[in-house]
């Protein structure tokens, strides 16, 4: 895209993009730390994540202010307008991702050191895929690359499928040993958080597609999360 005749307009848009990049970087960092904290049951690290969420919230407010000011001052049209609208939406997805990372970290406190390692592996595996999805979608956003965004959008299926199997696995543990219910519920929420982070990545993907093409993706996203329809068979 060529530059605006008014250079300050370009500066406004660049500043927005920079704030979004900062938010993305923070969200990635928070998510990595949250997964690390829960997998090692490191409560100190978890507290760091909890405290760090404010920064993302603050950036979201700044993005919103900057966006509103830019709309008021520049009366953006066409792609510029989409750019700003998408920035607002992406920032709210990133803020939610920050919240989910924080919520996952919080659960570290509820898990004892004695928790069998293999129970946690499923959640951390989901965490790594969520991290990968987040990283890829942030790259796609930084490069405004709709093809890359679509790849992330499609790849969410994997996260859904994994969530399904972890859901069933944790249910089995709970049925085998009711003393595990408390712990497994926390893990289940952790897994759900990762699945939600994946969904936010697909939201961002849809927004990138809209930004580039000026119309929404029409095709239906393949979804493999069937947990809402899973019934527990009484024994």
């Amino acid at each position, binding site marked *: 895209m060529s*530059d*605006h*005749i008014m250079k300050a307009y370009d500066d406004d848009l660049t500043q927005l993009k920079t704030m979004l990049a900062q938010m993305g970087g923070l969200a990635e960092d928070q998510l990595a730390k949250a997964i690390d904290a829960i997998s090692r049951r490191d409560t100190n690290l978890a507290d760091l994540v909890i405290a760090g969420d404010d920064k993302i919230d603050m950036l979201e407010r700044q993005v919103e202010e900057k966006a509103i000011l830019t709309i008021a001052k520049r009366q*953006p*049209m*066409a*792609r*510029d*307008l*989409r750019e700003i609208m998408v920035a607002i939406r992406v920032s709210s997805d990133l803020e939610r991702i920050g919240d989910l990372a924080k919520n996952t970290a919080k659960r570290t406190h509820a898990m004892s050191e004695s928790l069998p390692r293999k129970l946690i592996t499923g959640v951390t595996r989901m965490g790594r895929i969520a991290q990968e999805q987040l990283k890829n979608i942030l790259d796609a956003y930084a490069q405004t690359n709709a093809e890359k965004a679509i790849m992330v959008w499609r790849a969410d299926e994997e996260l859904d499928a994994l969530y399904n199997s972890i859901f069933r696995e944790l249910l089995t543990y709970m049925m085998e040993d009711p003393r595990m219910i408390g712990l497994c519920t926390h893990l289940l929420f952790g897994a759900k958080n990762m699945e939600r982070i994946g969904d936010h990545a697909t939201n961002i993907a849809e927004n990138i597609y809209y930004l580039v093409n000026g119309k929404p993706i029409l095709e239906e996203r393949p979804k493999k999360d069937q947990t809402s329809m899973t019934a527990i068979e009484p024994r």
Partner: protein
Amino acid sequence: MNMMPHTMVTPAKPRVFAGRAVKIVAHDVNVYYADKHAIKHLSIDIPDRAVSSFIGPSGCGKSTFLRAINRMNDTIPIARMTGEILIDGKNVYDRDLDVVQLRARVGMVFQKPNPFPKSIFENVAYGPRIHGLSRGKTDLEEIVVNSLKKAGLFEEVKDRLEHSGTSLSGGQQQRLCIARAIAVNPEVILMDEPCSALDPIATARIEELIDELKQNFCIVIVTHSMQQAARVSQLAAFFHRGNQVEFGDTDEVFTNPQDKRTQDYITGRFG
């Protein structure tokens, strides 16, 4: 103005563009000012009972084309035109066409309000009188009052119709010019930057008026304000260096233009 020989194209059935009946059809129109090729092979279908806006940088040909519709370029000796412009299937450049009659059917509103140095009443009564549209004094008064009402000016001037038109504010003068244009019962109203000399409040009034008038007229507006084009028009055409780059649904043109030049222009970038 010299006319090149041409063949008459009469559409067999009413044309439709963007789901609307077409009022004006331009077919391969070229306008030259001496050596300057001001409009290049322009073909466009302008719908009735809708507002079509022409946007583009200065010198892109949008005003030239607007003026070609009611043959205002005829008065410019160096102007030359080829192609044809049909209103309801009739070429306005036909030799047997009466230009005075044409200008009664196609009214025009200019950038700067230009009321006659006469009373408010006379400003509006002048057109119907010379075109013989009234059957006497009461009839003429009715036309004047109705036109002023349609132009949203009557309430403000009803107690001083004998005052000079030039005593009104800029916005009122412009509405007076619109009342004058619609007094002769035109079918098409051409507006060449009608709000560029007005403040935002007067502009809003004119825009509101344009929005109401579109129910009865085919309105074509040239404007430098992209926001105005986006606000008042249902169809928008982008002109660039004498070419019509894009013409379509205003909502689409301003949110998702198909041509990069349109995109660059409406977002304030270098063309």
